[in-house]
């Protein structure tokens, strides 16, 4: 017995000795008391608790070590293991589609038929394609201000003071005093609290919509809205409901059904928007703004109105639909009226405004994705 136990004793002794050495070293480390206290208080004579702690610890380690660009397919069940050689063969076999199909004859003819104006554009430009003068019914020169000498002169003065490019986004030293002044002028012109300039009309609404409409919000929109609105809604990932083109009865039905659904689900209150155009780019029909505002207020929606084509073209002094129907869009009892009014794709080549209350403005600036770039002085008055 003794002969059998003595080597065992030696082993036990060695282990005990080394354990106490480890313990001593552990207590010598700075901060070991804190760890010890933590372990003791979490253990509390219950191995289950320690087990739970360990699981959490390993989960944290695993999450930290996971690749940031982890693909879904890696974890999915249908990931197929290949050997390196098989992958090489698959790579060898793969034939991608061409990046772009060359134009066929009809498309090429279409492209060649695009009118190109020689020199300045105006009511009677000369075309490069034919070399002859033509009557221009295509350009968006509603007010006939293209080539206005006074505007040109002011633009020249601005160029001589500021150069051409602003060389930076709004946030970083691209916020020129002319931008600020122009925004003020436009807000004053439209009788709204504030305005913001964008560099490209097309990008304005497609950036503004996702800045405010998020996942879960509801957008009720006319079926015939222009592409940039559709793109903005796509990006926003909101719930989209369509109503028949320029049919306010259809709109009311949709608004009622949305309200009914919400009551049924008892979901939280989400942001709700009606989006439509003042004058539709597609067919030139005009929205009945007073009725629309009535509906919007009745059902408590916010209205985003794209006035690309109505600003500068309707109303006694060209202030667009609000002037035509003589309505004021700011409702004193709505804390944040977001009534987006107006881009002009016509003469002046810039703009698109967002009217909103002053309270919101700093938040909005930071949420809008597009930087404002550059601007020539324009006179709106």
């Amino acid at each position: 017995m003794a002969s059998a136990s003595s080597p065992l004793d030696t082993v036990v002794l060695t282990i005990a000795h080394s354990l106490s050495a480890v313990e001593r070293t552990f207590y010598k480390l700075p901060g070991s008391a804190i760890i010890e206290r933590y372990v003791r208080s979490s253990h509390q004579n219950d191995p289950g608790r320690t087990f739970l702690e360990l699981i959490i610890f390993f989960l944290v380690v695993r999450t930290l070590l996971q690749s940031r660009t982890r693909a879904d397919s890696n974890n999915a069940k249908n990931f197929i293991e290949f050997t390196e050689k098989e992958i090489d063969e698959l790579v060898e076999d793969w034939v991608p589609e061409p990046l772009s199909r060359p134009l066929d004859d009809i498309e090429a003819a279409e492209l060649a038929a695009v009118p190109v104006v020689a020199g300045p554009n105006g009511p009677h430009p000369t075309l490069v394609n034919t070399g002859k003068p033509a009557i221009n019914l295509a350009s968006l020169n509603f007010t006939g201000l293209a080539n206005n000498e006074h505007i040109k002169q002011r633009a020249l003065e601005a160029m001589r003071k500021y150069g051409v490019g602003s060389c930076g986004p709004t946030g970083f030293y691209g916020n020129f005093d002319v931008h600020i002044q122009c925004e003020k002028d436009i807000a004053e012109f439209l009788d709204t609290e504030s305005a913001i300039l964008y560099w490209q009309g097309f990008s304005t609404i497609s950036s503004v919509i996702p800045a405010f409409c998020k996942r879960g919000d509801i957008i009720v929109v006319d079926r015939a809205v222009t592409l940039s609105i559709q793109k903005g809604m796509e990006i926003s990932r909101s719930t989209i409901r369509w109503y028949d083109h320029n049919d306010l009865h259809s709109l009311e039905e949709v608004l009622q059904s949305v309200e009914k659904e919400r009551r049924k689900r008892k979901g939280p209150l989400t942001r709700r928007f009606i989006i439509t155009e003042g004058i539709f780019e597609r067919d030139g029909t005009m929205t009945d703004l007073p009725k629309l505002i009535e509906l919007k207020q009745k059902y408590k929606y916010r209205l985003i109105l794209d006035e690309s084509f109505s600003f500068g073209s309707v109303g006694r002094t060209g202030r667009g639909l609000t002037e035509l129907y003589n309505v004021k869009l700011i409702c004193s009892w709505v804390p944040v009226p977001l009534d987006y009014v107006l881009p002009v794709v016509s003469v002046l080549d810039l703009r698109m405004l967002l009217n909103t209350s002053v309270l919101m403005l700093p938040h909005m600036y930071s949420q809008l994705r597009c930087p404002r770039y550059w601007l020539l002085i324009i006179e709106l008055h």
Partner: protein
Amino acid sequence: MAPKSTSPSSVFKKRTSPSPLTSAASYFSALSQVDAKTRNAHKSSSPTPMSTPALSLSSSFTNSTADTLLTQADVENSHGLAFPVEPPTSEQVHTTVHTEFGHCSNEAHRRFSSHIPNTPVLHPEDRDPPYYVLLSTYISYLILIVLGHMRDFLGKRFRAKSYKHLMPSNGYAPLNSDFDSFYTRRLKKRMEECFSQPVTGVAGRTIQILDRYSKDFNHTQTSLNTVTRALNISSYNYLGFAQARGGCANAVEEGMKIYGVSTCGSRLEGGSSDLHTMTESLVAKFVGTEDALVSSMGFATNSTYIPALVSKGCLVISDEFNHASIRFGVRSSGAQVRMFKHNDTNALEALLREAISQGQPKTHRPWKKILVIVEGIFSMEGTMIDLPTILALKDKYKFYLFVDEAHSIGGIGLHGRGIADYYAVDPRKIDVLMGTFTKSFGAAGGYIAGSKALIDRLRIRSYTGPYAEAMAPPVLTQIVASMASIMGVDNPAGTSMGSLAPSSSSSSTLQLASPETQYHHPGPVPQGFLPAWITLPYALSSGFEGRERLRRLSFNSYYLHRGLDKLGFITYGHPCSPIVPLLIFNPGKMMMFHRMMKDRQTPIITVVVAYPATPLITSRVRFCVSASHTKDDIDCILKACDEIGDVLDLKHGISRKDRWSLDEICRRAVELVNLPDHEN
């Protein structure tokens, strides 16, 4: 934080405000008169005498001569930005305004920007800061977040009035949810003074900032109605073409007189003019591709043309630090997206092997096409892609390559033609080259260049064509003029061009060049590519000034980058890139840095960026070097960084014994810049 700077007085010295001046107008007028005076004194031999004052002022401004010129000059010089430190000699003729484009005649302060063939591509390693910096950064954010949530929680209960916009009211949900806007309200708002600074004048070497302050904890900013001229190291003005004077501005004036300010319509619907066509062929020539198209907004170039390239069933492989516009475009295209680790070609290859072998998720069908999207120079990192390796991968894995050259076009390469020029590879090996005119050309908008079939398809299929307004004529003219002055105009009369190209390959040889042939610089632009009415001064049309600008930019980039490194700062990116990020880490130091730079005797304006533009931990200040800066300007910036870096404890880069003193860096600048890439 105890200031331990060697010369704290200069760091904290409040700049002398131009208080002797009664108003901004008299300040302007004094400035312009002083400028005019120096110009007359030093540049009487200038070939294009300028009758208008340096800063365009309406006549009412220039009439006020209440203050004497002499005292004005003293005030003006106090910040040391109006005149060069060394006055020019009679041989040195400068055609630029010093405040817009700095005067520098020292030929030693030039450098060529190109990759040495057959050498490995430089991958600057990222230096990690000490752990206490990381820890304090995390704790800072933690404090900010906890404080913010506490304020929200209490505020909503006790000060409901000021939280009205975050709470449902009257049946309307709040426009911004408090969760979505938390970062903006509780973190960004604290350093609001660093953003959206109103400015005026030209965004050139210097810029005038409209002074402002906040009375109500950054909720609103109040204007002081005074103007301060500051050294501008923040604008994307790489080649210094942001000028209100000079050949390009004259060309723009000429163009505006002919074409007006707008073409009134979209490209496919009556808004195309011959100027657009000409610009597009010039851009194609400049970049070295078959064809190109221009789009009126840089952000929209990516966000509206990428959906025309890929669709459902295609895969986009995108660098993790790609710009928001690329993400926007990819998201609206409907294609699948995968990201790879920033600038890591091994990760890219692994991802490609996986993607091609696995095919589309679930169905395992092969991908229709794979498009790899990278940026030539990354806008927040200053890193440069390893183009040769990516092209080798492209040959093997048959993907299509989209390079966003927003920051590299015009800025790098022996001839300023961007990343392909820098590595001397044929640009036609890259399927889609995208870039913007906002940066190096002092204009606005963007372009896409590629094969004719691709560009024609994009012209018809992308929704920019029928919907977005065409580029404005003054912008087009600026692009044409600045691009032509980088390329140089081929004069049929045979005036000496002094071309840098070893073999002056004409455009015809380029047309025939097979993809295997070595990169040939496309050479100067034939006169026929430019509108007949454009007349550029000789310095520009010969391409001499364009080359000078390229070489000055390269010198400045290298000098600032290596100077900061030698001072002991942590910087990111390739020394060749005009973007020089200096790592700050702690969120609290960002605003301090910004303000201390702005409040110096020579005010310097800087851009500080943090999450979400960068990863949370690596807040940084981003310098954008320009050809318009002189060595003295860079010295000034290095001096400021050295002093502020000591105060704010930012020097966590190379070890103390490897560092150089500021004096040594300034003295041995040329030597420092000319060190080979791999020895630094």
